[in-house]
């Protein structure tokens, strides 16, 4: 029963990602949207923890000019991929 978690705030401005990581279960996934994509920055405090677990919304990454700056193992997804991820998990949870 996997959950897809949505994070829309940067780790510097919100505890949402920390709280999410604390309760995430095996098989869950994260999509970083809006300012949430800053959590994927290579060399940041959170990128390593997100490797293989999180993906970042392509348009929001591009809007911030971070296309080439994401950590390893954090995939960029487009809007249709995002929808597809929602269908693959059992539920979607937004953290604010």
């Amino acid at each position, binding site marked *: 029963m996997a959950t897809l978690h*949505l994070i*829309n705030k940067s780790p510097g401005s919100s505890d949402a990602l920390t709280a999410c990581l604390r309760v995430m279960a095996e098989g869950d996934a994260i999509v970083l949207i809006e300012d949430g994509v800053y959590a994927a920055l290579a060399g940041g405090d959170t990128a390593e923890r997100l490797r293989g677990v999180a993906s970042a919304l392509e348009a929001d990454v591009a809007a911030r000019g971070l296309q080439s700056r994401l950590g390893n193992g954090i995939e960029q997804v487009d809007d249709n991929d*995002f*929808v597809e991820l*929602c*269908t693959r998990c059992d539920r979607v949870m937004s953290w604010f």
Partner: protein
Amino acid sequence: MKFAIVVRAGPLASEGSRSALRFARAVLASGHSLERVFFHGEGTYNASSLTVAPQDEDDLTEAWAELGRQQQLDLVICVASALKRGVLDEREAERYDKAGANMRPEFVISGLGQLADAALSVDRLVTFGG
């Protein structure tokens, strides 16, 4: 698969409304059904017909209305959220003796029951804004 979307952000203060609109388009483009979009809190500002977008900015209220018209979407705004923000349909304007109504015709005013109903009847409920 059946989707519903909750929009908690207005058209201006954050990216939530734009993110929700993009997601709504992608849901429809992927062949899924979008059963309802529920606008709550600041999200009810998306239904105002009185916003005037600058020429160099996207008009999100019009974009939601256009998508609603094209796809025959059920765009619901929360009555308690809308009234205190001054987003009124004809009926509420008359009921509270206000000078005019400003809700776009593509939307309907209803209560949180519509959100609960969507949560129970769709496969995925996705919340934006906040």
